[in-house]
């Protein structure tokens, strides 16, 4: 909300600068977002005295002037204005001054011109005698501005203007108005806070408010069919108005806050709205059929043309103002084109109503219109402020348009405002704020912003009993009963204040948050603090991956719908859920929720590859989303879980003094993943080769734990690489991190087991199997068969070639056995024989000779 500093000072005296006032308001709840200085820059302009004039010898239209600028010697200035004459006091731009002169080429534009000593047609000129428009004071360019005779020679021109009461500069404060402060959407409203904060009085313009009834009620009528939506409708009539341009002062006020002046009548309604916060509407009375106004709801399928010339379909039930023929305005939002005040209007009907805030908010939303009026009505205007505002406007219209106010007022008032009274307990103020605000200060602060505040007597036993019955609790009420509080009446322009706590907030903001001292200590409840065990697992996972050189990414949760569809496939998860889309996306690129972290990972990898990065190891932990029926879900119908993705591309090892360069492959990714999962101590991970091919992966491996789908490990398909413009193969693993975390969760700390003092026994076992026999299941067989003595098993060689038969490969395992005793060779040999037997049976393996 723009507040003009000059305008504000019509309602409150203050010595503060605009900046200081802005700070004060910021610290009491009206945040200053910016400040703009308006008006011309008059630095370097001084009052000059034209001592003498003579014709320029080389130019007919130019005059040579001798001008006293208050310096030691008068100077010569060349002037082109026809009205310059000896004896005049004039504004002079001295040498070195920069003026914003109207552009000759582009009307309405201004260009900076620096005034300097120069020769004009051979004659020296020291400065420039200025016209009104050249100073930015108006549009007049008929001649130089001639000042009053008593203007002091040499005085800065700005000082002269100020002394004459012709302040030209203004500051506009842009205040952020929070939804709880409808009272602050006007100059008087802000002035009220200023007055309260600086201990001054609020000066409201005196307005003679006509009594209800009188001639006005004979010349027009108002009928309200919907009293809940329109509790009050006030109207006054001004006859014999000449619609025309507003006077300079009014235009200046509106221009300052960014409102375009239109005509005296319209400008007055806008002015009074910005002054009082009460939106008004002016109708051409002669265009109102039967001079009768009705407030009622629209029917289905109706249309209406608003005064911006747009025809709008009215949602059914929109509250409308109508005359004898039809609609003339959308209540509280915008008037209609037909009944609008025009140049030929002579009789004006001024409306000021109180509309139900929810009704206006719904209408404005449904119509997609927010106007200065709807903004105020939906927050709640003063339900008692209509007579004052309408009378203020009617008097101004009569004054400025030369019209006559018809005596009396129309005041349809089906639902009178009932003031709210509250009891404020000083003890409660202290309980909330943590500091004591003296009772008399509470009363003083509240009165300053329009409350009444009286010391309330202790409640009677009857009232106490009643309260206990109502609250169904004894102790607090009993305490309250013995405490004499402060009975306050909430002013009608504060509809946001309904409870004691609302008043405590007012006390706090006026008292000053900075006046509330920090305590030196604060109590802490003795409950163990910490994160969830699951979150701790994920933190650990992240830290370990960083240790392996992975970089953490944060990618967008919102993706294009096509991407969401492409990545919602069973290939990535065990089951593809239906996608989630937003109803009101910012753009089609961000219309759906990501079903997987893969698209974000691929985007980030391509982005970096395109910028020359080769070795990429990245990790992200983030939510993925889908629709699912799950009664346990926080929001029924939706599924979200934390996903973990690892990505790897480019070199796994660089050329070094004793190392060769090597590109990463899927086993580097698998190694990294299994390494960190191993550290979490998960139950056994089962590797399941997929049966179905997929479009997104060239090949993949499914990981399961205890029969649950944990995730996949894969290489991105060539088609997907092309789609994302990836320059090197990308390997990734995406896992359900929530499942991971719950599986890794430990109840209590690890229990120590004694370290064996006996040496371990190592055995190698080389077998020949068919080429197609995967090694993973053989490892699983060995672990299951070798018994509890087996500590570890590794694959240390894999061979295909001439030395074994075609279509076969040799796989060599290293097994390590240990126990809390010395192992006998026969015991270990027996284990090995058993392992070999099962390998033969299950995997068709034979011992390599």
């Amino acid at each position, binding site marked *: 909300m723009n507040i003009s500093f000059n305008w504000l000072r019509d309602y409150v005296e203050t010595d503060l600068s605009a900046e200081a006032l802005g700070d004060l308001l910021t*610290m009491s*709840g009206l945040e200053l977002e910016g400040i703009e200085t308006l008006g011309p820059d008059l630095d370097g302009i001084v009052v000059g005295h034209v001592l003498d004039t003579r014709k320029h010898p080389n130019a007919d239209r130019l005059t040579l002037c001798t001008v006293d600028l208050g310096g030691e010697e008068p100077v010569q200035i060349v002037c082109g204005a026809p009205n310059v004459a000896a004896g005049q006091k004039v504004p002079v731009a001295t040498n070195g001054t920069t003026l914003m002169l109207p552009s000759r080429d582009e009307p309405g534009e201004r260009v900076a011109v620096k005034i300097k000593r120069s020769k004009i047609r051979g004659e020296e000129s020291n400065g420039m005698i200025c016209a009104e428009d050249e100073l930015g004071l108006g549009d007049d360019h008929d001649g130089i501005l001639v000042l009053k005779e008593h203007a002091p020679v040499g005085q800065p021109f700005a000082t002269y203007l100020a002394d004459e009461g012709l302040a030209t500069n203004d500051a506009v404060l842009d205040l952020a108005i*929070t*939804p709880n402060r409808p009272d602050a959407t006007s100059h008087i409203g802000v002035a009220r806070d200023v007055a309260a904060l600086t201990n001054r009085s609020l000066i409201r313009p005196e307005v003679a408010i006509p009594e209800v009834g009188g001639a006005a009620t004979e010349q027009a009528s108002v009928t309200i069919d919907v009293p809940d939506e329109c509790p009050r409708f006030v109207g006054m009539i001004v006859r014999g108005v000449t619609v025309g341009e507003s006077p300079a002062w009014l235009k200046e006020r509106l221009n300052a806050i960014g409102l375009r002046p239109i005509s005296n009548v319209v400008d007055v309604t806008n002015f009074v709205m910005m002054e009082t916060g009460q939106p008004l509407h002016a109708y051409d009375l002669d265009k109102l059929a039967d001079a009768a106004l009705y407030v009622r709801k629209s029917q289905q399928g109706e249309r209406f043309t608003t005064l911006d010339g747009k025809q709008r379909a009215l949602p059914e039930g929109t509250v409308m103002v109508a005359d004898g023929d039809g609609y003339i305005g959308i209540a509280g939002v915008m008037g209609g084109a037909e009944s609008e005040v025009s140049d030929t209007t002579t009789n004006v009907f001024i409306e000021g109503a109180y509309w139900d805030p929810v009704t206006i*908010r719904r209408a404005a939303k449904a119509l997609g219109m927010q106007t200065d009026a709807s903004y105020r009505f*939906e927050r709640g205007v003063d339900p008692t402020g209509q007579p004052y505002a309408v009378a203020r406007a009617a008097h101004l219209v009569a004054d400025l348009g030369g019209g006559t106010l018809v005596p009396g007022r129309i005041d349809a008032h089906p639902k009178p405002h009932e003031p709210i009274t509250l009891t404020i307990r000083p003890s409660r103020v202290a*309980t909330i704020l943590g*500091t004591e605000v003296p009772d008399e200060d509470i009363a003083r602060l509240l009165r300053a912003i329009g409350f009444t505040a009286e010391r309330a007597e202790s409640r009677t036993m009857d009232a106490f009993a009643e309260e206990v019955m109502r609250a169904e*609790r004894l102790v607090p009420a009993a305490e309250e009963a013995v405490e004499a509080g402060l009975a306050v009446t909430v002013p009608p322009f504060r509809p946001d204040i309904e*409870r004691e706590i609302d008043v405590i*907030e007012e006390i*706090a903001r006026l008292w000053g*948050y900075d006046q509330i*001292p*920090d305590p030196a200590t*604060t109590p802490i409840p003795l*409950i163990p*603090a910490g994160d969830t065990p699951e*979150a701790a697992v994920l*933190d650990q996972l*992240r*830290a370990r991956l*960083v*240790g*392996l*050189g992975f*970089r*953490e990414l*944060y*990618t967008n*949760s919102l993706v294009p719908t096509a991407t969401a569809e492409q990545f919602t496939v069973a290939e990535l998860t065990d089951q593809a859920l239906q996608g*989630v889309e*937003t*109803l*009101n996306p910012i753009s089609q690129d961000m219309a759906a929720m990501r079903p997987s972290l893969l698209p974000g990972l691929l985007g980030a990898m391509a*982005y970096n590859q395109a*910028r020359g990065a080769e070795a990429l190891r990245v990790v992200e932990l*983030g*939510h993925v989303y889908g629709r699912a029926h799950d009664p346990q879900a*926080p929001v029924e119908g*939706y599924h*979200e879980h934390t996903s973990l993705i690892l990505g790897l591309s480019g*070199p796994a090892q*660089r050329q070094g003094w004793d190392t*060769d*360069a090597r*590109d990463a*492959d899927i*086993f*580097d990714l698998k*190694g990294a993943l299994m*390494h960190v999962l191993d550290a979490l101590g998960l139950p056994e991970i089962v590797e399941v*080769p997929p049966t179905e*091919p997929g479009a997104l992966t060239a*090949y993949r*491996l499914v990981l399961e734990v205890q029969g649950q789908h944990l995730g996949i490990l894969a*290489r991105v398909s060539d088609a997907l690489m092309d789609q994302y413009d990836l320059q090197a193969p990308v390997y990734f693993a995406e896992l359900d991190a929530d499942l991971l975390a719950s599986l890794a969760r430990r109840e209590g700390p690890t229990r120590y087991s004694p370290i064996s003092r006996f040496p371990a026994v190592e055995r190698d076992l080389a077998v020949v199997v068919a080429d197609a026999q*995967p*090694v993973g299941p053989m490892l699983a067989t060995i672990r299951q068969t070798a018994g509890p003595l087996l500590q570890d098993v590794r694959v240390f060689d*894999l061979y295909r070639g001439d030395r074994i038969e075609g279509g076969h490969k040799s796989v060599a395992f290293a097994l390590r056995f240990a126990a809390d005793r010395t192992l006998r060779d026969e015991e270990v040999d027996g284990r090995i024989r058993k392992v070999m037997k099962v390998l033969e049976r299950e995997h068709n393996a034979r011992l390599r000779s």
Partner: protein
Amino acid sequence: MSTDPTTEATPLDAQIDTVQTEIDTAPLTSADEAEAFRIRFLGRKSGAITDLFAQMGAAPPEQRRALGQRLNALKARAQDRIDSAQAALAASGPSAATDLDLTLPGRVPAPLEPGTLHPLTQTLQAIEGIFRGFGFSIAHGPEIEDDWHNFTALNFGPEHPARDMQDTFFLEPPPPEGRGVVLRTHTSPVQIRVLEGQKPPVRIIAPGRVFRNEAISYKSYCLFHQVEGLVVDEGVTFADLKAMLHTFARAFFGGDVTMRFRPSFFPFTEPSAEVDIWWADETKPGGGQWMEILGCGMVDPNVLDNVGIDSERYTGYAFGMGVERMAMLRHDISDIRLFYENDVRFLRQF
């Protein structure tokens, strides 16, 4: 007698012959082999052909043209082989994938350079660490929320203009038309989820991702992260809130922090405040500026009543801060989009 230098066999020719034989005989029956082939011969860093091209510069100038032609032919031959092998592999479908035994154990790659936690994670961990020190537990909630938790229980009336303060992504229309399922606009719904399941004393922070339907610019993104704080107990006051946040700011920003509490409005707290810290900047008039870091206030009694907690007996405070905002201040970052671009040249710095 003169020898035409352009036709004379060079040492490089011999190497080309060797590589050509290797290209013709290398196995290309699986995707893995194809990839190994590509790296071995055509790799941009250490591929054999790339290597030969590099050596060409050392050959006598008059021979280079002929060598260049041979090498280009060699490269084309290698590319042909790999193309036809890949086409064959693609045609043979999934069976090609089975050639690669993914069940073989992985190998742990040595780090090439130190990894990095994202700066937002680092900032979040710093914030969490400070509050843990003050006895706060950490709570989590869903990013897809319902109207009750995101708005109504937090005292946003169904038609209150305060709902316009947060530009909301809807998944289902707001009541009365629908259930008002939204992408949570703040972490405050975790307050409700915690209070629905826990009686006072409550002392938690809730970090997480939140969404706003705002145009993307250097200062706003369609999503960001918040840390919510909530304390509910007997005798909790606004002065306690001030002291806690003051102590937090000193811990987070280090040393003396000049801070101010401005009255503000949030439907779920009353009194409400926004907190600014003084950010020294010699280029600014006045030697710095106030930077908003968080919003806070005393828990509105309606919120406690909504979750069945006696608001006469218990009071509480809540606060919420933007993790991006804190990270930007901490690391002197001026464009929020950098966090989501994931440029390693940016990530590497943290």
